[in-house]
């Protein structure tokens, strides 16, 4: 062990800390002796109590002799007040010429050198200071810095308080730094580069080019040329032969391991992009594991080999401006570093690895506690409280800050930094849904303009959630409802053995900033919701709904936001990357284009899961039961904690403001690692089946702070110790560990008697699991770090102490003015325009990039693909298991366009659409045993200071309530996102863009047998086609109006008739409807669009009956409305069915007949099916 000599002059607090660190084993060194400049200083007594020799008031010569005679490696100053001479320092240099004398200074040098640095910092008016460890040179406090650590002292009242905060940081930093200096690891560096063997194999360049062109629609691919390569750098304590690296990485058919010669000659056009430390780097993790496998190392040895992946870009263009745009878009500033080469650095790159340098050349200093920092709130003014909330990105309003202030005043202490973080996460709109639980005062005019349906809305609503959504479920109890609103997802009994759960989440804010990362973490997050439902469920399907702006805004958009096409491609790729590797089929979804989504896109990710209703050997037996016993271990399973995604929950509770630096600096971008999550899922399900844990939840918004804080309510307390949390990178403060939203983590409650087995299975399955304390029953959420309590929160205050909001709502409907056309639109032009419009056109290019078949249970897929033809389906369905008769069917309804007029109609229509979609596909409905349930997702512009949006919110809530109650359908889960506004600048002027008030309704139903499932396309020539339903259509708010077509017909919102709907749906949901050969609902684009889409899959034609065709108005052909279906039946069943519909009181109309000639005939009009299909597929990007 190396030897150190400590020199001190004062009370010796740092000296004592070093002795303690040595005793703990964190400082691996032999502390040889203490030298003091004053014989009676405090340090002497400490040395004596440890039995260490003391050298009293030595001269420099005496010191030098001692150092040489005893082979001292480092001289460590711990408050040594004598200035050392240059000759002394020079006598103690190592072979590199570095000073072997080390000092610690209580400031962030070069700021505040000299004496009383804490006081200097406190009086200088800065908000943070820190400590520095440096090598000693002759000029005081000026030697090379080895390590620094900062802390903020906002809220402290004296220099003494600052010093109290700083001392423990000094102690820890010093010990860690000295340990790393004295015990450097033997490390070898390797670098391997892979170049595509030919240009057509350069997928990196192809992907970058298409993304870049989407982001820069004003350029084309003639103006530049990109080539890419991959590089891996490895730092290893083991020797790795280059042959082994090639065996692992090099594909001899596809890759070359040396740069083409032209790369060498143009090194200044080469850029290398590497990840910032602590960011998820999946390829690097895979390489580390591959090397461990190849070298036969311990699989859990995560330390001895560190790899980093980087990408090389060779950028060729004659235009310097284009070049700088390209270079800028190579890297995401929050995620990456970019390095540009010169001839010299290119030649040297193998010896100076890029990605790892920052991690290895200096001791990274870290893990320090600033969590004992206190915020003294007692005397703060309202302004100061608000400023504190804003500076720290807590997103707490004044009432909430005052509640916290009051709570801590009563406790007669100041909150710690960690406590404030936990409160901010728990009380965030994202987690607490304050708006939905607040009181709303509502008013509307006594007389509505013509064309608006009447609706009864109370003047005061206390908790919109309880008054609408929850009240529906309370008044519609069902024998198959196992768990609603309390768990991660609603749980429904599907068969005597099986339960199904479902959840839909949004990930809007992250997707606005980085669409790929936002969406991949969105889908990954909802999978964890499912995994963490009940005693653990297996995800069996995905659904995704994207609301983005039309591509025409690619060139016309505010500063700082991405072009809509780029956002769409990014979220698509993110859902692909998160869904496909997870092995979960994507079976349903929707895509909505509207200009209101230009500022913030809405990204809904949903998933359904399967779980056995009971497991006899599981501690809780029943799937829906959530239970924790005091003494159960808090075990974190899966990924490690990194700096990614800190403050996600509070961030999403703020509007997106590109001009606010506090928001711009937040490390909110998370990256996903589906592979780690898949391994964790496999493990969790195995551990569940062996009964090795009691319950679990996921780590999503708010990280451990929320997951443990919520689970703690089950046992009434938790003692969480963050000391041994596995980290992706050093340097995280404990309160950052607490709130980090790093992905792929579950929090599991493991009974003590199962802990060993649980951890062993976890190790065997290559999943990291770590016990981080225990659940308790003392009513307190306690958080510890390195032996100190950094938070001690009263659970009741944490979960119940958040003050209620009060909102004011006022509805002022606008008159529905007529839209008289200058020139009449022809039926053919309207139909072609609708079929090729963004909202209706085929989504094949998206759909075909999602796996919708994996697990082998898919019954209904998003589109029916027959050879090169496709027709869209209404909903998706999967069998519960390959050998099961029963399937779960899921459909969505989202019609935000109606919010331009009335959110009540919007909500009713969205619900009706979702229900009709699953009924079209064969879902059962109409008896108490029929399983059909609803989910609601509200995405709103901020209603807190906007009476209109608040009124829309109330109306939408009551719209859902009316519809769901009338149909007797319960809500089982829901989520809201309330801050979907964007503030920024465009063309030098400030702009605000708010999303249309949007409700996504998801319907989840059951198809009891494969023979009851049906698709929407027409099957055979000769079949008869009917409309079933009220046929009360309207063009107001329809896609016809949306794409700018005008008409002279009267304008009114479509009206619901829920009594009639119930009759129709009961027939559609009965076994009798199994006789239908196809079924779809009449929705966007109206009757003519629905008929057209039904022709494509089998290339059929259709002839409208002449009496219908002759009288049809634009509203009949293209109008949209409630409750109506398009069905086809075989000729021989036609008469019998018509009688049955008539006797059941179902309105129906015969439309015409399916023909083999591929033409759509409507009176004097005739359109070729092929041409209609071409129009419909005009946006599918050439996908078959």
């Amino acid at each position, binding site marked *: 062990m190396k030897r150190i000599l400590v020199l001190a002059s004062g009370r010796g607090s740092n000296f004592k800390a070093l002795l303690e660190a040595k005793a703990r084993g964190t400082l691996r060194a032999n502390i040889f002796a203490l030298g003091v400049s004053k014989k009676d200083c405090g340090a002497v007594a400490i040395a004596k109590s440890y039995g260490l020799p003391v050298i009293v008031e030595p001269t420099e010569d005496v010191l030098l002799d001692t150092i040489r005679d005893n082979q001292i490696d480092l001289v460590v100053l711990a408050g040594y007040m004598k200035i050392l001479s240059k000759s002394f320092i020079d006598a103690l240099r190592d072979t590199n010429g570095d000073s072997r004398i080390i000092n610690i200074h209580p400031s962030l040098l070069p700021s505040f050198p000299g004496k009383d640095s804490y006081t200097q910092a406190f009086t200088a008016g800065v908000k943070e200071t820190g400590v520095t460890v440096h090598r000693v040179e002759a000029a005081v406090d000026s030697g090379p810095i080895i390590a620094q650590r900062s802390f903020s002292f906002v809220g402290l009242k004296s220099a003494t308080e600052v010093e109290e905060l700083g001392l423990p940081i000094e102690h820890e930093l010093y010990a860690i730094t000295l340990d790393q200096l004295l015990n450097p690891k033997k490390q070898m560096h390797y670098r391997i580069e892979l170049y595509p063997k030919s240009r*057509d194999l350069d*997928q990196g360049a192809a*992907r970058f080019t298409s993304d870049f062109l989407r982001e820069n629609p004003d350029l084309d691919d003639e103006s530049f040329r990109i080539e890419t390569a991959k590089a891996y750098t490895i730092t290893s304590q083991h020797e790795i032969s280059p042959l082994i690296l090639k065996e*692992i*990485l090099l*594909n*001899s*058919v*596809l890759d070359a391991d040396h740069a083409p010669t032209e790369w060498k000659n143009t090194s200044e056009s080469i850029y290398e992009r590497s990840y910032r430390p602590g960011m998820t780097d*999946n*390829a690097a993790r*895979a*390489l580390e*594991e*591959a090397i461990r*496998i*190849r070298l036969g190392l311990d699989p859990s040895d995560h330390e001895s080999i560190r790899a980093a992946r980087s990408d090389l870009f060779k950028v060729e263009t004659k235009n310097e401006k284009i070049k700088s745009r390209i270079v800028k878009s190579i890297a995401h500033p929050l995620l990456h570093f970019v390095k540009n080469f010169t001839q010299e650095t290119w030649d040297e790159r193998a010896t100076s690895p890029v990605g790892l340098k920052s991690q290895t050349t200096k001791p990274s200093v870290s893990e320090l506690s600033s969590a004992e920092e206190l915020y003294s709130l007692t005397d703060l003014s309202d302004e100061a409280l608000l400023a504190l909330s804003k500076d720290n990105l807590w997103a707490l309003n004044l009432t909430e800050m005052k509640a916290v202030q009051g709570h801590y005043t009563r406790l007669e202490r100041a909150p710690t930094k960690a406590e404030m973080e936990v409160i901010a996460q728990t009380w965030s709109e994202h987690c607490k849904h304050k708006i939905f639980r607040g009181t709303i005062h509502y008013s509307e005019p006594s007389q509505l303009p013509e064309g608006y349906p009447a609706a009864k809305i109370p003047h005061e609503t206390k908790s919109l959630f309880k008054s609408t959504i929850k009240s529906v479920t309370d008044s519609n109890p069902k024998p198959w409802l196992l768990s609603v609103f309390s768990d991660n997802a609603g749980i429904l009994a599907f068969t005597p053995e099986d339960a199904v759960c479902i959840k839909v989440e949004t990930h809007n804010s992250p997707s606005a900033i980085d669409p790929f990362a936002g969406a991949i973490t969105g889908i990954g997050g909802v999978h964890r919701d499912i995994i963490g439902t009940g005693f653990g469920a297996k995800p069996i399907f995905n659904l995704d709904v994207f609301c983005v702006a039309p591509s025409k805004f690619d060139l016309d958009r505010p500063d700082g936001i991405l072009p809509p096409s780029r956002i769409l491609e990014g979220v698509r790729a993110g859902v*692909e990357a998160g869904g*496909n*590797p997870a*092995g979960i089929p994507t079976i349903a979804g929707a895509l909505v284009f509207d200009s209101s989504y230009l500022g913030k896109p809405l990204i809904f990710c949903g998933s359904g899961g399967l779980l056995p209703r009971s497991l006899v050997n599981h501690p809780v037996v029943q799937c829906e039961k959530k239970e924790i016993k005091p003494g159960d271990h808090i075990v974190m399973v899966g990924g490690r904690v990194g700096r990614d995604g800190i403050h996600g929950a509070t961030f999403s509770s703020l509007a997106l403001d590109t001009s606010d630096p506090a928001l711009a600096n937040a490390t909110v971008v998370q990256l996903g*690692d*589906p*592979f780690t999550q*898949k*391994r964790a899922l*496999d493990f969790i399900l*195995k551990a569940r089946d062996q009964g090795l844990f009691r319950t679990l939840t996921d780590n999503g918004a708010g990280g451990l702070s929320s997951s443990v804080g919520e689970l703690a309510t089950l046992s009434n307390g938790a003692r969480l110790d963050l000391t041994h949390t596995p980290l992706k990178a050093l340097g995280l403060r404990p309160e950052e560990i607490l709130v980090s939203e790093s992905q792929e983590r579950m929090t599991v409650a493991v009974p003590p008697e199962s802990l060993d087995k649980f951890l062993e299975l976890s190790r*065997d*399955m290559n999943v990291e699991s770590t016990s981080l304390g225990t659940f308790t029953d003392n009513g307190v959420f306690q958080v510890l770090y390195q032996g100190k309590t950094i938070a001690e929160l009263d659970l009741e205050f944490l979960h119940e102490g958040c003050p209620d909001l009060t909102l004011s709502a006022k509805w002022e409907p606008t008159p529905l003015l007529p839209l008289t056309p200058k020139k009449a639109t022809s039926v053919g032009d309207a139909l072609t325009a609708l079929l090729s419009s963004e909202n209706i056109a085929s989504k094949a290019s998206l759909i*075909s*990039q*999602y*796996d*919708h*078949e*994996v*697990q*082998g*249970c*898919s*019954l209904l897929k998003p589109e*029916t*693909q*027959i050879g*090169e033809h496709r027709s869209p389906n209404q909903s998706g369905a999967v069998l519960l298991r*390959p050998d099961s008769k029963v399937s779960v069917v899921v459909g969505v309804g989202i019609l935000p366009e109606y919010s331009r007029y009335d959110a009540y109609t919007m909500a009713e229509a969205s619900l009706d659409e979702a229900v009709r979609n699953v009924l079209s596909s064969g879902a059962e409905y109409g008896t108490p045993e029929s399983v059909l349930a609803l989910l609601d997702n509200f995405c709103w512009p901020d209603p807190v200071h906007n009476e209109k949006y608040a009124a829309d919110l109330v109306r939408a809530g009551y719209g859902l309530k009316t519809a769901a109650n009338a149909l007797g359908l319960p809500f089982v889960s829901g989520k809201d996102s309330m801050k979907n506004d964007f503030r920024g600048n465009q063309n030098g002027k400030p702009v605000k863009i708010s999303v249309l008030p949007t409700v996504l309704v998801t319907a989840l139903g059951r198809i009891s047998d*494969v*023979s*009851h*499932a049906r*698709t929407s396309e027409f*099957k*055979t020539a000769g079949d008869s086609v009917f409309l079933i339903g009220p046929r009360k259509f309207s063009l107001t708010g329809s896609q016809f109006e949306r794409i700018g077509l005008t008409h002279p017909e009267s304008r009114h919102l479509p009206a619901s008739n829920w009594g009639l709907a119930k009759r129709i749906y009961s027939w559609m949901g009965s076994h009798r409807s*199994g006789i239908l*050969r*196809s079924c779809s609902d009449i929705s966007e684009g109206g009757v003519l669009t629905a008929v057209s889409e039904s022709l494509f*899959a*089998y290339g059929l034609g259709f002839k409208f009956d002449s009496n219908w065709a002759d009288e049809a108005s634009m509203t009949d052909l293209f109008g949209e409305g409630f409750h109506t279906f398009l069905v086809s039946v075989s000729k021989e069943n036609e008469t019998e069915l018509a009688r049955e519909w008539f006797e059941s009181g179902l309105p129906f109309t015969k439309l015409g007949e399916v023909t083999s000639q591929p033409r759509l005939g409507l009176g004097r009009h005739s359109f070729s099916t092929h041409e209609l299909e071409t129009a419909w597929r005009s946006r599918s990007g050439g996908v*078959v």
Partner: protein
Amino acid sequence: MSVNKTAWVITGDGINCEEETAYACKLAGFKTTIIHFSELLKSPRKLDDCSLLVIPGGFSFGDELGSGRVFALKLKYQLGWDLPAFARDGGLVLGICNGFQVLVALGVFGEGVALAHNESGRFINQWVELKAERSRAFDSPYLKGIAAISLPIRHGEGRLLVSSPSQVGSSFTPCLFYENNPNGSLDSIAGITDPTGRIFGLMPHPEAFIRGSQHPGFFRNEDRKDTVGDGFKIFENAFKGARSL
């Protein structure tokens, strides 16, 4: 007398089609076990006890470092299984999609074969029409009695490329071809066997067409009564051709 033929379906590390693949094997008559890789490490097994080894589809190691490559390292260095020797002794090996990629990375079809990214750069989920040409792989049991079948493909890296054309027919034999080459594969190749014909790798998913109702065209049948899907034939053939233990 009951026939004792066993199928091992390997999973873990991101493989995700093990359930439906095992279901297909079971239905075909195999005594089927899904074996997680971690179990193989904990209690090693000998291939002597296996008639059909299946490496199913999925995303082992998230497709990082090239699809199938890290999983192949695990098979080679942690288990030390010699698949060509197993095949010579009468064992059958079936690699589907990611499993095929693993077999290619293991080198059982020779060194100069690769499954590159699809030509379009995209992941593709699509039902495709396939032709079987048994004349080229007449020893192979898998495609007996199959001329043309429909199966779904679901992959991002399925474009078969070789470093030299002379390998085709020597280190491996192509036997399954796309009608409408969706990924840019050499000669529209969708599936190949090793020289013994007993190791079969293919990109399309036969386990995803076991029941008729898995095909999008199923719903055209008036009674919608479930039938047997095209892909099942491959498992039945494997069962017939598998050695009895």
